[in-house]
């Protein structure tokens, strides 16, 4: 798959932090299998407001899986504010670039993370 960088292939082949968090503090789902890619992110926030745990499940192409893995690595240990600054472009950059046609549809990881954070904030607000 010459279309993917070595970093993408590494994250696709050995995705970090795959899984669900049963008692997640926030859950974010984006995408749609009809369009090709779908991701669900789970976060656990510690007392200092840091993402202690970030997990995900991903349906989609190699890029989608690598993006999820990279986002989980980038987000882990960050504060909420820091994590909200993770962007699609930033993720693609960390991955050593993504093929042009994968930039939009498969690069949903940051969105899913942000959704999970919003979910957390919303739940927290309600407490």
């Amino acid at each position: 798959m010459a279309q993917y960088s070595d970093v993408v292939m590494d994250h696709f082949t050995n995705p970090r932090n795959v899984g669900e968090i049963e008692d997640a503090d926030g859950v974010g789902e984006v995408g749609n299998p009809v369009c090709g890619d779908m991701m669900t992110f789970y976060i656990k926030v510690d007392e200092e407001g840091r993402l202690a745990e970030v997990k995900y499940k991903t349906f989609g192409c190699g890029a989608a899986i690598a993006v999820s893995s990279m986002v989980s690595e980038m987000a882990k240990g960050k504060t909420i504010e820091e994590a909200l600054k993770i962007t699609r472009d930033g993720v693609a950059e960390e991955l050593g670039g993504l093929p042009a046609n994968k930039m939009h549809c498969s690069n949903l990881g940051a969105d899913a993370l942000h959704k999970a954070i919003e979910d957390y904030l919303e739940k927290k607000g309600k407490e």
Partner: protein
Amino acid sequence: MRTAREVYLDNYAASPLLPEARDAMLPFLGESFGNPSSLHGRGDAAREAVEEARSRVAALIGAAPEEIIFTCNGTEANNLAVKGITAGSRRKGRHIMVSAVEHFSVLHAARSLEKQGYELELVPVDEYGRIDLGALRSLMRDDTILVSVMLANGEVGTIQPVAEAACIAAERGVPFHTDAAAAAAHLPIDVESLGVQALTLSSDLLYGPQGVGALWVRRGLRVIPLLDGGVQEGGRRGGTENVAGIVGMGVAAELARERMTERSAHLRGLRDALIAGLPARVDHVHLTGHPVERLPWNASFVVEFIEGEGMLLLLDQQGVAVSSGSACTSRALKGSHVLTAMGVPPERAQGSILFSFGPQNTLQDVDYVLEVFPPIVERLRQMSPLYAKFLKERG
């Protein structure tokens, strides 16, 4: 990444060139170079080689040599058929019909005509991808000037009832084209008994070289050229001939005829072993296409809850080369129009995978796939939110 084993099961995309074809081509890439239009000895030799290839290609489908137009691939042949025949019958009408599961080279050619003011009707197919003959009959009109239905679909393997469909068109006197690119090396074809007026062949799907194809057009049917230029190919296709390629296609056509029975039996054995073995080892895997009326080399499936590209990449890491009709694996990022036309739900179509066998494959290749593929499916499912949901729902 080099793996212990290389198992090439993407013969539909490209297949090893027959050594006999290659050997026949080499002189024309060397000292026998020549232009068939030249009037000296070198031109004569090139012309004779092209004409011999033409006879061989014609023999494969029971046609007359002078009815064969060499093109540069199946795509050009299909474009020439769709655009050339309609342009030749412009005065008779503007309505054209092609099946919903045609190769893009037919479908998109037809769409481009639609943009120019032709009316296009897609003939629907059933869940196995077979066209609805009743619909074909009822949708046909007095101003229909072309019907195109492929002999067999490469993506899902389904063989179409072309003789029956051609008969329906013949009742109305409508020219009928069939794209036999994916089928010609495996199904015996006789254009007379098939009752068609034009037929597409592709060299690479005959295990010949890439860069050559042919369109057979029944004598008397008018085809307006797509490539205007010199008077090559009886004035129906200009441009210097790819002599070496044409020679290679000729040899491939001859060997297709000679070896068809033996090859098909071999391929069918491999195909059936995988079709039986895979669903036995992996749950929620479904064969796509017709279970019986299918190409001997085609074992296509949808694997639920996961997406094709991931399967491809992980199989590639194990040395197994395959393809998929998923949106992510298409450069246009669109899911397979064939699976869609067959009513396969989009999320399921995302899990499409095609194992296409070639003569060089063995039962060991099937065994290897059956060994390495199930863990790959399992691994991707473990990552899949859809699979998690399914398990939860099932409880």
